[in-house]
C-alpha cells in the first residue's frame, strides 16, 4: 500500500513539473517535404525542441523511410504499403487519411546522418517528455545500453529534471555512459562511485566491461567497487533467503498451530490434523465456487468469507471426532494415533468421492497477486499476507489461551484434570471444545494454504509430518516453542537448499530434528515440573 501511495505522489509531482517549450510541430513536419538533408537535420532539431511526444511516430517513420509527402499540397503523411497503393496516416494524430496511388506521393529521403539525428532527437524527446514514465523508461534504456553518444543528451536532460527517481536513474545512466567516454579521470572516478552505489548484478557487468579500456590508475577503484557490490549482493541474497525461510516457516506455523493445541496442550496425537487443513482448503474452494456462480463481484472477499466457513466446518468435524472416537481413548495416546489415522483415511476418501481425485482450482484475489521489490529482494504479496496472517492467528490464539476464561479452563484441565473437575469445570466439555478449536484453526490454515498449494485430497498428507516435527521440535505444550520451531525450521531449510538441493535439504532437516530430539527429548522449550512425567 505504501509503495503505491508514494508512487502516486511522484505522479502528481511530475504533472506539476515545468512544461517544456511548446509550439505546434505540424508545420515543422510539413516543412520536411521540400527540405534537403542539411535543412532536414535542422528541422529534426526543431521538432525535438517542441518536446511534444506526439511526434515520436513521425520521427520513427522518417528513420524507416515511411514518411511521404503528397505531391499535390506537400502535406506529409506516414504511409504503409497496401497492395499497389499507399495507406496514409496523419503523422501526429495517427488518424487514417485514406489510400492513394504510389505515384501521387514523394518519399522523403533519409541518410545515415539523418538517422543519427533522429535517434538523438527521439532520445531527447523521451528523456524530456512531460510523461514521467516515458522519461524513466528512456533513462532505463540508456542505462541498459551505455554509449558515449548519449552522454550530452543525458546531461541536458539532467539539467532540467526535477523528479527524484528519474534523476537518480539518469545519473546512473550518465555514469555508465561516462565510463567508456573520453572524459577526465576525476569524472570517471565519480562515475565508478555512483555505479557502486547503484549496485546490482548489472553494475558489476558494466564495471567489468569497462575494466579493459579504462585508465590503469582507475582499475583499483573498479576492483574495490566490484568487491563492495558483490558483498552487498551477498547480503541481499541472505536477506532474501531469510525472507523465504520466514515465509516457509509461516506456512509450517499455520499447519502446526492447530496441532500445538490438540497435541501440545491436550496430548492427543491427531493424525487427521492434515485432513482438517485439507477440509479448510476445500471449504475455500466451495465458497469461491458459489461466489463465482452467484456473486462474482464479491470475489476479492472470498477468502474473508471462507475463513469463518472453514473454521466452522472443521471445528464441527473436530467436535464430532472428539465426541465419537477420541474421548474413549484418553490416556492411550498410541491408540489415539491409530484411530485418528483411520479417520484421516476416511476423510481423504470422502473428499475424493465427492470432489474427485484431481486438483481443484482455487483463485487468488487480486490483492494477493503480484509482488514488489524491497531493496534487492523480491517480495510476493501472497507470501507477505500469509506471514502476517499466520502471526495474527498465533497471537490471537495466545491471547485466547492467556486472557479468556475458556483459555483458563483449558489450561486448568491440562494441568490437573481432577482438580479442575473438582472446581466445577466441565472437563469433557472443555476437552471437546479445545479439540474443536484446534481443528478449526487447522481449517483456517487450510484457507491460507489453498492460496499457495494444490488443493487435492492429499493436501493434508504433505503437512502432517512437518507439523509434528515443528511441535515436537519447539516443545510440546508451549505455543511460543511452536512459533520459534516453525520459523527456525523454515529458515534452516532455505539456507540448506542452495548447497544441498531442495530434497536433500529437507532430508538433512529431518535428520537434524531426529538428532535434536535425542539431545532434548522434550523439544526446545520443554515444560518443567510434574506435567512432564504425565
Amino acid at each position, binding site marked *: 500500500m505504501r509503495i503505491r501511495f508514494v508512487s502516486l505522489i511522484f505522479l502528481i509531482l511530475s504533472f506539476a513539473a515545468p512544461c517544456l517549450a511548446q509550439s505546434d510541430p505540424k508545420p515543422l513536419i510539413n516543412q520536411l517535404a521540400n527540405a534537403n538533408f542539411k535543412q532536414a537535420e535542422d528541422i529534426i532539431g526543431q521538432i525535438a525542441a517542441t518536446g511534444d511526444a506526439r511526434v515520436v511516430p513521425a520521427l520513427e517513420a522518417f528513420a524507416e523511410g515511411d514518411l511521404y509527402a503528397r505531391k499535390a499540397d506537400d502535406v506529409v503523411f506516414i504511409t504503409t504499403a497496401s497492395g499497389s497503393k499507399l495507406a496514409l496516416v496523419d503523422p501526429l494524430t495517427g488518424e487514417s487519411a485514406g489510400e492513394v496511388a504510389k505515384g501521387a506521393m514523394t518519399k522523403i529521403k533519409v541518410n545515415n546522418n539523418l538517422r543519427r539525428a533522429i535517434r538523438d532527437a527521439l532520445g531527447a524527446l523521451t528523456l524530456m517528455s512531460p510523461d514521467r514514465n516515458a522519461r524513466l523508461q528512456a533513462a532505463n534504456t540508456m542505462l541498459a545500453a551505455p554509449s558515449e553518444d548519449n552522454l550530452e543528451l543525458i546531461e541536458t536532460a539532467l539539467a532540467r529534471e526535477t523528479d527524484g527517481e528519474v534523476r537518480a536513474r539518469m545519473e546512473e545512466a550518465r555514469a555508465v555512459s561516462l565510463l567508456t567516454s573520453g572524459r577526465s579521470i576525476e569524472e570517471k572516478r565519480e562515475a565508478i562511485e555512483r555505479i557502486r552505489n547503484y549496485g546490482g548484478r548489472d553494475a558489476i557487468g558494466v564495471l567489468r566491461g569497462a575494466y579493459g579500456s579504462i585508465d590503469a590508475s582507475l582499475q583499483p577503484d573498479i576492483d574495490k567497487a566490484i568487491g563492495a557490490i558483490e558483498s552487498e549482493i551477498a547480503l541481499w541474497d541472505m536477506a532474501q533467503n531469510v525472507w523465504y525461510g520466514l515465509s516457509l516457516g509461516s506456512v509450517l506455523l499455520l499447519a502446526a498451530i492447530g496441532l500445538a493445541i490438540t497435541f501440545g496442550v491436550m496430548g492427543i*496425537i491427531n*493424525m487427521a490434523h492434515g485432513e482438517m487443513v485439507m477440509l479448510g482448503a476445500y471449504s475455500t474452494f466451495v465458497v469461491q465456487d458459489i461466489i463465482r456462480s452467484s456473486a462474482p463481484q464479491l470475489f476479492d472477499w472470498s477468502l474473508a468469507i471462507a475463513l469463518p466457513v472453514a473454521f466452522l466446518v472443521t471445528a464441527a468435524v473436530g467436535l464430532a471426532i472428539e465426541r465419537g*472416537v477420541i474421548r*474413549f*481413548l484418553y490416556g492411550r*495416546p*498410541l*491408540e*489415539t*494415533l*491409530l*484411530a485418528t*489415522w*483411520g*479417520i*484421516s*483415511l*476416511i476423510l*481423504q*476418501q*470422502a473428499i*475424493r*468421492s465427492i470432489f474427485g481425485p484431481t486438483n481443484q482450482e482455487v483463485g487468488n484475489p487480486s490483492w494477493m497477486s503480484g509482488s514488489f521489490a524491497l531493496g534487492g529482494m523480491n517480495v510476493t504479496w501472497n507470501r507477505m499476507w500469509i506471514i502476517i496472517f499466520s502471526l495474527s492467528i498465533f497471537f490471537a490464539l495466545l491471547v485466547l489461551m492467556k486472557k479468556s476464561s475458556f483459555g483458563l479452563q483449558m489450561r486448568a484441565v491440562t494441568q490437573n484434570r481432577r482438580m479442575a473437575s473438582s472446581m466445577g469445570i466441565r472437563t469433557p466439555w472443555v476437552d471437546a471444545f479445545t479439540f474443536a478449536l484446534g481443528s478449526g484453526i487447522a481449517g483456517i490454515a487450510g484457507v491460507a494454504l489453498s492460496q499457495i498449494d494444490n488443493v487435492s485430497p492429499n493436501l493434508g*498428507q504433505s503437512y502432517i*509430518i512437518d507439523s*509434528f*516435527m515443528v511441535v*515436537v521440535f519447539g516443545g510440546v505444550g508451549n505455543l511460543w516453542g511452536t512459533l520459534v520451531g516453525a520459523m527456525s525450521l523454515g529458515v534452516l531449510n532455505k539456507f540448506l537448499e542452495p548447497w544441498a538441493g531442495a*530434497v*536433500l535439504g*529437507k*532430508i538433512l532437516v*529431518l*535428520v537434524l*530434528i*531426529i*538428532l535434536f*530430539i*535425542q*539431545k532434548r*527429548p522434550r523439544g526446545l522449550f520443554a515444560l518443567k515440573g510434574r506435567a512432564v512425567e504425565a
Partner: protein
Amino acid sequence: MITGFVLRALDGKIVVAIGILLAIAVLVPALNLLVPAGSAFHIPTYAVSLFGKYLCYALLALALDLVWGYCGILSLGHGAFFALGGYAMGMYLMRQIGSRGVYGDPVLPDFMVFLNWKELPWFWYGFDMFPFAMLMVLVVPGLLAFLFGWFAFRSRVNGVYLSIITQAMTYALMLAFFRNDMGFGGNNGLTDYKDILGFSVQAPGTRNVLFAMSAIMLALCLLIASAIVRSKFGKVLVGVRDAESRVRFLGFRVENIKLFTFVVSAMMAGIAGALFVPQVGIINPGEFAPANSIEVVVWTAVGGRGTLIGPIIGAVLVNAGKSFFTGAFPEFWLYALGGLFIAVTLFLPKGIVGTIQHGWHARTERKAAAEREKGEDADMMPQAAE
C-alpha cells in the same frame, strides 16, 4: 543350552502354527505344480505369488509385534527396514541381469547407463554375490535400527515421540530414495529382474520355491520370536513394556534390552522385504511411505498385539480383504481400512487372537473356579451331615 532355549519356545500353539506353516510350504507348491490346471484343487501360479506376498507381510507384522506388542515401542518406520531388505535383494537381482538389460551393459544396471554413469558406485560392489547380498539383507536394516535405537533409547525418547521420529526416519529415507543421485533407481526403483541363483524369477518352479521359502522363514522367525518372548529375557521385555521405570530401577539396562529387540525386529523386517521383492518383481521408494508403515501397525492390531500368532493372522486377513476390495469396490477400500483402524482401537483393543485368548482364559478360569467351588461344597457336605 541353545536347544533348551529353543525347546522352551515350543508351547502347543506355536508348534501348531509352525506345523501349519510348514505344511503350507509343501502343500501349496504341490497343488500348483502336481494338480492339473482343470482340477478344483489347482492353485494358479499368480495366487502362489499373492499368498507368498501375504506371508512376507505376515513376517513384517510379526517383526513389528515383537517391538510393539512385547516391548511397547510403537515403530511407525518398520516399512523402512522392510524396504531396505527389499533393496538389498533388488540390487542382487539387478546385478544378475548382466548384459540382458535394454542397454546391454555387462556391469551397470540400465538406470545407471541412462543417467550416464561410468562405473558402479562403491555401495553396489559385492551385490553380484548371493551370500553377500543375503548378509546385507540382515546387516543394513539391522545397522540402521542399531544406530537409530542406540541414540533414541539412550536418551530415553519413548512413547509418542519415538513413534513420530520413526515416522520421520522412513519419510526421510523415502525422500532420499526418490533422488536419482542416490544410485538406487530413483522414482522407478529396481525392476525388470531376470533370474535368481540362475533360475528365472518368472518360472512357476522358482515362484513356488520362493513361496516355500517365505513360509519356512516365517516359521523360523516365529520360532525365534517365541524363544525370545518365552525366555527370562522375554519376561523382562514385557516388564519394560508395562512399567519401564520400575524395570530400570530394578537394575536392568532398559536401553540395551530395547535396542536388542529393535535390531532383531528390524532384521526380520529386512528378511520379509528380501522375500517380497522377487515375488512382486519391483522395489521402489513408495515402500518407504509412512502410510505403509502405519498399515503394518493395523495388521498387527487387528490380529492382536502381544500374541505372536495374531499379527500373522491379521496381516493375512487384512491383505486378503485389501485384494478383494481393491478388485471389487476400489472406492470402498480406504473407508474399510479407516473403519478398521477405528473399530479395532475402540472395540477390539486386544485384536482377534487376543480377544479369543482372553475369552478362553476367562472360561477356563470360570470352570476351574466352579470346580473348586464344587469340591469345597463336597468337602462341606459330610461335615454338615456329621
